[in-house]
């Protein structure tokens, strides 16, 4: 199988130049995870030269080419910074450096989402010393970096389920100042699940919006301030909290919709495993649990609001050595709503196979090719 460029030609029209204010849903299953595709979105947005043609440069350095350059905010609920950094490196993206250049921001929804920070002091220096030149570039995030927090009033959230006051995670420093010490490998904002239901979602939204605002504010004249938001498995929030915490499909949808307002395009990864989607339907032989009902409602509702749905699934005929899975691209419910007809150009519904190689490279090909 010939090696393909970082952005395989078949895939390129779908991951580049996403329509304004669109939502793209990327559905995955247990055996076919979508991280590689998320990384392709990341690559397409951050590597400016890839705008519309299939001639890609391997190096991540030529960000100053002409072309539509986007900024990216990646919110990950299941994977940490280390994973994304090392995987992006395989594509030639240096996320730590891009973070420095204010083109990329990572929001960590894994580390402290449901557990309180280990160190309790919250009154820290609001403005940490300016970063020196990257001594620790790309290094791991130190154990507990002092994040620039506002002195939080009220008690510190002990842990998720208990009702506590939402704690501002990342203060918004003046846009001119770097938001966090260099050592964190970028201004890594850590999300916290603070109180119950809507309030907690609101505080998450506020945190993410703050990061988006920082990126936008850092835009200079020559570089566009379009921001792409990548939400990696926000459905975890729904699954891990659920109706008993006043979070349901409706609240989640509203939350995502709220986030969409801040950015130009949104890509959301969702789990679409059989039990999570089909148990809720009446055909199921057993009673659906609230988890299943809400998840199905959220996933299906999102697909209806989406411009495109990229479905990843296992090969129907069982595992194979040279095929990792199937990618089905279909129009979402919001297809064709944008006024500009050209934005849909080159995108059509299709089903292709993909193969993720050991080195992280991906080839996308049609059946029989």
């Amino acid at each position, binding site marked *: 199988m010939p090696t393909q460029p970082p952005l395989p030609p078949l895939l390129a029209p779908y991951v580049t130049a996403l329509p304004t204010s669109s939502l793209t849903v990327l559905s995955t299953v*247990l*055996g*076919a*995870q979508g*991280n*590689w595709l998320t990384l392709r979105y990341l690559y397409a947005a951050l590597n400016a030269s890839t705008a519309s043609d299939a001639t890609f440069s391997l190096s991540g350095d030529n960000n100053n080419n002409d072309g539509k350059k986007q900024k990216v905010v990646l919110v990950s609920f*299941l*994977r*940490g910074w*280390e*994973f994304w950094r090392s995987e992006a490196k395989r594509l030639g993206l240096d996320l730590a450096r891009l973070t420095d250049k204010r083109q990329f921001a990572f929001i960590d929804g*894994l*580390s*402290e*989402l*449901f*557990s309180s920070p*280990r160190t309790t002091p919250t009154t820290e220096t609001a403005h940490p010393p300016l970063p020196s030149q990257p001594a620790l570039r790309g290094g*791991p995030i*130190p*154990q507990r970096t002092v994040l620039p927090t506002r002195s939080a009033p009220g008690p510190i959230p*002990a*842990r*998720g*389920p*208990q009702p506590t006051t939402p704690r501002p995670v990342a203060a918004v420093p003046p846009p001119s100042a770097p938001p966090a010490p260099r050592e964190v490998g970028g201004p890594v904002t850590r999300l916290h*699940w603070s109180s119950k239901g809507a309030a907690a979602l609101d505080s998450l939204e506020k945190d993410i919006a703050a990061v988006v605002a920082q990126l936008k504010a850092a835009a200079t004249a020559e570089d566009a301030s379009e921001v792409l938001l990548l939400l990696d*498995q926000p459905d*975890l929030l729904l*699954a*891990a*909290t*659920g109706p*008993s*915490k006043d979070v349901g499909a409706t609240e989640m949808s509203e939350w995502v919709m709220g986030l969409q307002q801040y950015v130009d395009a949104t890509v959301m990864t969702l*789990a679409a*495993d059989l*039990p*999570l989607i089909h*148990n809720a339907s009446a055909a199921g032989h*057993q009673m659906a*649990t*609230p*988890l*299943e009902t809400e*998840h199905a409602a959220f996933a299906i509702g999102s697909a209806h609001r989406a411009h495109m749905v990229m479905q990843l699934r296992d090969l129907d005929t*069982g*595992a*194979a*050595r*040279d*095929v*990792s*899975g199937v990618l089905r691209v279909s129009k979402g419910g919001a297809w064709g709503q944008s006024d500009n007809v050209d934005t849909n150009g080159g995108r059509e519904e299709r089903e292709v196979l*993909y*193969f*993720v*190689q*050991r080195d*992280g490279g991906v080839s996308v090909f049609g059946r029989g090719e």
Partner: protein
Amino acid sequence: MSFRKRNIGLSTGGDRAAPVSAAAQPQQLASAASAPESTPGVRPSPDDGRPTTSTGTPSLDNILAGHGGLPIGKTLLVEENGTTDFAGALLRYYAAEGVVQDHRVHVVGMPEQWGRSLPGLIGPADAVDDKQDKRKGERMKIAWRYERLGEFGAGIAGSRVPTATPGEQAQPTAEGSPDKRPAFCHAFDLTKRLTHPSIANLNYIPLAPSNEPLLTTVHKKLDAAITSSPSSTVHRIVIPSLLNPTIYPPESCQPDSVLPFLHSLRALLNRPGVRATAMITIPLSLFPRASGLVRWMELISDGVIELCPFPHSADALATSGAATSHEEPPQGMLKTHRLPVLHERGGGSDQKVGQDWAFTLSRRRFEIKPFSLPPAEGDKEGQDGAASGAMPKKADLEF
């Protein structure tokens, strides 16, 4: 080689009494700074060099997507159908391996008897395989780094056999082996009891009711135990039979209790500077895979394997399932639903993916091997022909 000396220093203790293992801590700390791979029981993955540790079951290490072990920072969810306890055996091997390697083992929700029933040490895993010994002499020497890639465990004969253990077979092989690198994986005997000085270091986390949610307490204790130990320590978190109603109260089976727990556990393992792995088992008969909760538990875990023991009625199949007469019949099927690292990247490129695996638990080992259906039961002639292996007689071919 510098690390060789260090290891000699580590294993010279004729009787590895408790003070020795305590003294080993700073030594590990010193060595971890320069060469993290030299920590006992941790080696770089042949695939991409990330540190991995053994599950205590060589054949399980072998199917974990080419890493030759469980990568540090990953969780393995072992699901089991039915009422058997094969997954429990896997957990015991995993815990026993941790004890032998001086890792810090945290056991959640089990009394101390569980730790006392860990299987006894026989020796390094490869020393038990006498086949390997025979081949050792005649094999062409290639660079030691690649030597290990072919067959798991070949070429790593260990000297680090604690002499406190009554391991008669282990001693000669260890002395005879030319290289003195510590063993990565050991073999254990289920009928014996593990006696090792560091077995007292097992950290039991009881499920005592308190005023906060149970699993929250468990996570806090795990967090505290891991945070308070030196950063060079390798941790193993053992969670037997998660959500089993005889151990866990019903409210912890709610998604909003167990999923945040697993998420926090994942966060803990992914924290920079923490070197830990976790193995969790869950009874599938009570929590079927078709339920959304279990699917979410799988999604949060890095690796998912499912054990499907053959029911008793399938004994006939099981006995004939062995390819040859001296091979033990398989006791069940093993399915890999998700492998650490591999699937997170996108998956699918593993050579072994898609194979049917069968497992056999014997006194000495838990073995996972490709499952092959035997010749049809009624097909006597076919079997005889295969057994004799002879060409058909000339007379049979003539018209």
